[in-house]
Each structure stands twice: as structure tokens, then as C-alpha cells.
């Protein structure tokens, strides 16, 4: 009997080559997506002067393609959502990981998975039929379909991401850190906020960024509850007025435009902006993981 390596059959070569191809397919898909966005969106920049693009009025029927109100709308809604979601998310993660008794954890974790699974159109429907009337009455505004309503729904949609990433970050803090904190005479509360959470800092930052990426790209729920008025959010009360985001604009208008028209190219142009924006956010989030790896796993 020979001690050679077992002979590989040709079929095995084929399978392993196939797996290699599948492994690289993700890169291919990202490139393909970007390519097709460019293909359909780039003509916009030759058809519409830049002054028009960066103006304050989005009114495609009159050839006004100002993306500023949409961009600011997305930013306003996202920032508000994150401002609501981050304290709730970090507190929940700390509660689940550091404080909660076993039974509470058994309830909380599946609930958060359920939240992650609820389709955005269902949340949008809930927001439209129940949350919006509630907000109209309690705040005494003209309509409940406001940027704030959207931000509230978005906050809950970003929560599962924020909680699970933050929890992983807390999980990775060695137990010895906690022991050391307690041995110094600190209470568990002090140890959590002065030792454990600071040690999990980079993971927390990543949680916030991924949550932000999720919020800025959310479409259906936002479209259904923000009222879809493309106006500049410049005054303080804009938060409680109807608003329009980039994602909602694409979803609402793509069905009605003629293929190849300037309006059609403009919607793909917004798609390019969204793609680049989420790309940057995710790149930043990913770089915190890679940096952490280089430091040898210790956060």
C-alpha cells in the first residue's frame, strides 16, 4: 500500500473549482450592482446641470431634480432614529448581557429576534393606521405622517442590529476585566460603565454605525409613515412635519417613470448616492473589526 496522498478524482477538482468561484461571487455581485446603477444613473449628470441637481426643489414634472431636500430628509430621519435607538439598544444589550436574570434573558432575546423578522411593510402599516393618529392627537399637529413618526419606526427597526452587535462586543470582554473591577471594590454598576463598556467601545461604535446603515436604507416603513413631502427640513419644527427620504422617492416614483427618461436616470442617480453612502458606512464599520483583529482579539 502506498502512503501517497489519496488520488483526487476529476469530479473533485471540478467541485473545488466551483466552490472557489462561489466564494468569489460576492465580490462579483457588489461590482455588478454598482455597474448597473452607474449604467442607468450616470446619464443624469449629462442631462441635468449640477446647479439644478444641488438645488432645493425636487419637482420632476417641471424638470427640477434638486436632491437636497431628499438627502436632508434621509439624514434628519436617520439621525433622529439613531438618537432614539442607541440609548435603548445599548441599555438593552447591557441589561441582557450583564444584569438580567436568566428568565428575562430567555424572553428578551427571542423577542428581539421576532422584531428583526417583522417585515418593514407590516411596521409601516402599523405606523400608518395606529401610530400616526396617536402622534397627531398627542402632539396636536396637522398630520401624524411626520419625520418623527418615521424616525420612531426606524429606531425600532435598527434596534435588533444595534443590540446584537453591542451584545457581541460585551461578550468579547474577558471575564477577568469584570473580576478586576469588582476586586477593586467597585460595584457591579461601576464596573459595567467604567470597565466593561469602555473595553467594548469599538464594538459599540460598530453597532451604532451598522444601525445607521440599516436606518438610512430602510424604504417601505419610511415611505408609508413620513408623509412624502419633498421639502427642505430647515426649521425646528420640520421633525413634526411631512418629509421625504431618498429611499422613499425611488420606491414611490419608479413605477411611474418612462424608462430612459431624465426622471428615470435621476432615480438611479439617487440609488448611486445611497449605494456609496452605505458603502462608506459599512467600510467604516468593517475597519473597526479589522483593526480589532490586528490587536490580537483583545478589545
Amino acid at each position, binding site marked *: 500500500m502506498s502512503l501517497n496522498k489519496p488520488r483526487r478524482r476529476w469530479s473533485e477538482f471540478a467541485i473545488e473549482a466551483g466552490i472557489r468561484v462561489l466564494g468569489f461571487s460576492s465580490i462579483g455581485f457588489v461590482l455588478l450592482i454598482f455597474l448597473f446603477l452607474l449604467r442607468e444613473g450616470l446619464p443624469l449628470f449629462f442631462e441635468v446641470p449640477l446647479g439644478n441637481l444641488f438645488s432645493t426643489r425636487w419637482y420632476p414634472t417641471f424638470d427640477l431634480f434638486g436632491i437636497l431636500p431628499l438627502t436632508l430628509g434621509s439624514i434628519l430621519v436617520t439621525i433622529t432614529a439613531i438618537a432614539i435607538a442607541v440609548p*435603548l439598544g445599548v441599555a438593552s444589550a447591557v441589561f441582557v448581557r450583564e444584569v438580567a436574570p436568566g428568565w428575562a434573558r430567555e424572553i428578551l432575546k427571542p*423577542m428581539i429576534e421576532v422584531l428583526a423578522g417583522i417585515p418593514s411593510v*407590516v411596521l409601516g402599516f402599523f405606523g400608518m393606521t395606529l401610530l400616526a393618529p396617536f402622534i397627531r392627537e398627542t402632539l396636536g399637529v396637522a398630520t401624524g405622517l411626520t419625520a418623527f413618526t418615521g424616525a420612531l419606526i426606524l429606531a425600532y427597526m435598527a434596534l435588533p442590529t444595534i443590540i446584537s452587535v453591542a451584545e457581541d462586543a460585551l461578550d468579547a470582554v474577558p471575564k477577568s476585566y469584570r473580576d478586576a473591577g469588582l476586586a477593586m471594590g467597585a460595584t457591579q454598576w461601576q464596573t459595567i460603565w467604567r470597565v466593561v463598556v469602555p473595553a467594548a467601545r469599538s464594538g459599540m461604535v460598530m453597532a451604532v454605525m451598522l444601525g445607521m446603515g440599516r436606518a438610512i436604507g430602510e424604504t417601505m416603513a419610511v415611505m*408609508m409613515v413620513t408623509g412624502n413631502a419633498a421639502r427642505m427640513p430647515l426649521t425646528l419644527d420640520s421633525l413634526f412635519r411631512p418629509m421625504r427620504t431618498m429611499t422613499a422617492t425611488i420606491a414611490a416614483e419608479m413605477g411611474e417613470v418612462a424608462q430612459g427618461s431624465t426622471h428615470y436616470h435621476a*432615480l438611479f442617480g439617487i440609488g448611486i448616492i445611497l449605494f456609496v453612502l452605505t458603502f462608506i458606512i459599512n467600510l467604516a464599520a468593517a475597519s473597526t473589526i479589522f483593526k480589532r483583529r490586528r490587536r490580537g482579539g483583545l478589545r
Partner: protein
Amino acid sequence: MDRYLVQRAGFALLGLMALMVVLPILLVIGTIVVQGGGAISWEFLSAMPRDGMKAGGIFPAIVGTLLLTLGTALVAIPIGVGGAVYLAEYARDTWLTRAIRLAIINLAGIPSVVYGLFGLGLFVLFLQFGTSILAGALTLAIMTLPIIISAAEEALRGVPTEFRTVSISLGGTRWQGIRRVVLPQALPGIITGVILGLLRAAGETAPILFTVAAFFLPRLPQSPFDQTMALPYHLYVISTQVPGMPLQIQFGTALVLLILVLSLNVLATSIRSYFRRRRQW
């Protein structure tokens, strides 16, 4: 101030905030169950919509969503699991592998409506599939890929290295070890990830807006090149585009979608916890 008092107050505050996360979830599910429960009947589930969707059932939307999910599974499972096998078993830590990981993170972060644009540009127009189940399933499949790849890779990495060493020491090739030993051991984790990915696809609206969805089509699709109604899009249509829609039908549709998605969710988590308990290593 007594620092143990501070601690107790702090813990109570944390608990309260966790409660603020959980209560709205219960509120959403509870309201939809209570308000939509009355709409559910055999006719609602199995009949075609009538009277401009204001009466009858949502059968074609249910079938459409099931077909789309099936199509997504057929495309996304082989690509996703294959990609995960490469990352977990073959890839070395090179810049190319890091590029793959970066691509996966970015795929996961691309907004769903941008997937819709991409599907419209590539599948519907460029490849001329038209607005069809095929175009929609392909779009949803690419969107689902990062979820499946990450979950399957994690499951594969969870299988101890000894399993591979033993397989090779018995004279098996690398692929034999993966196929006969590693994959079966990782299967429960992979299945859980696949289901979680598919339920995301089943509930998505934005990617199918311009690639599949039919506003009103009271018949079943005959081929992959047909349009179809789908539950999430149908819910969007009847709650925003049709004036005078009976509220009960809207809630009923939301409930059916919710039940479909949440039962998949429960299935995935119970598979995971069942096999985690039975695992020998």
C-alpha cells in the same frame, strides 16, 4: 449617596429601557392579531380577490410569496453555502479573502430599494426577463446571500478541527471530509441561517416593487416569466393605494404575512436550540 442604591436604581432603569424595547413589539403583534383575526377565514386564504380587492381572498398573493421564496431558495442556497464552504474551509487570510468579506458586509448593507433598482436594470431590462418571478427571485436571492453566507460560515467554523484531521487521517480527501463529515455536522446551523435569510426575502417589498409585483392579478402565475401578486406588496397596495379599503382586510393581510414570517422564525430558532442541546461536542 449610597453607591449600592445607585446600582439598584441603575439596574431598574436598564430594565425599564429593555421593557421599552419589548412592549412596542408586543403591542404591534397584539394589535394585528386582534384586529386581523376576524378577517381570517377559509375563503380569505383560498379565494381570489373580488370587487377591486375589497372582498374575497388573498390566495394569489400567498401563492406568489411562496413561489418567490422558493425561487430565492433555489438560487441563494447553493451559492450561499458554496461561498461559505470556500470561506470556512479553503480560504487563507489574504487580501483577496478580506475583499470577499468586505463585499459580503457591503451586500448586507445595501438598501433593499437599491436591490430593486439593480434587479430592474439587470434582470428586467438588460437580460429581458421582464417583470417576472424569475427577475424577482434572482434579486431577492442576491439580497439574501450575505445572511446565508455568514450563518453557514459560522456553522462550519463551529465544527471542531479534529473532525477534519480524523477524516484526512483515514485517507479521505479534503472534499470528502467536508462533504461526509463537516457539512452534516454543520447542517442544523446552516438550515437555521437559510430560514432566517428566506424569511427576510419573504417579507421584503422594495426589491420586488419594480421586478415582479403585480398590483392586481386574480390568477395564478403559469411560468417563471409571469408576474405575480405577493403578500408584502399587496399589503402596501391595499393600505396606501386603494381608497375605501375595509380595515379588517388590511389587518387580515398583515396578520397572514406576520404569521408566515414568524412561524419561519420560530422554526429556525427551534432547530437551532434543539440541535445545540443534542450536540456531542
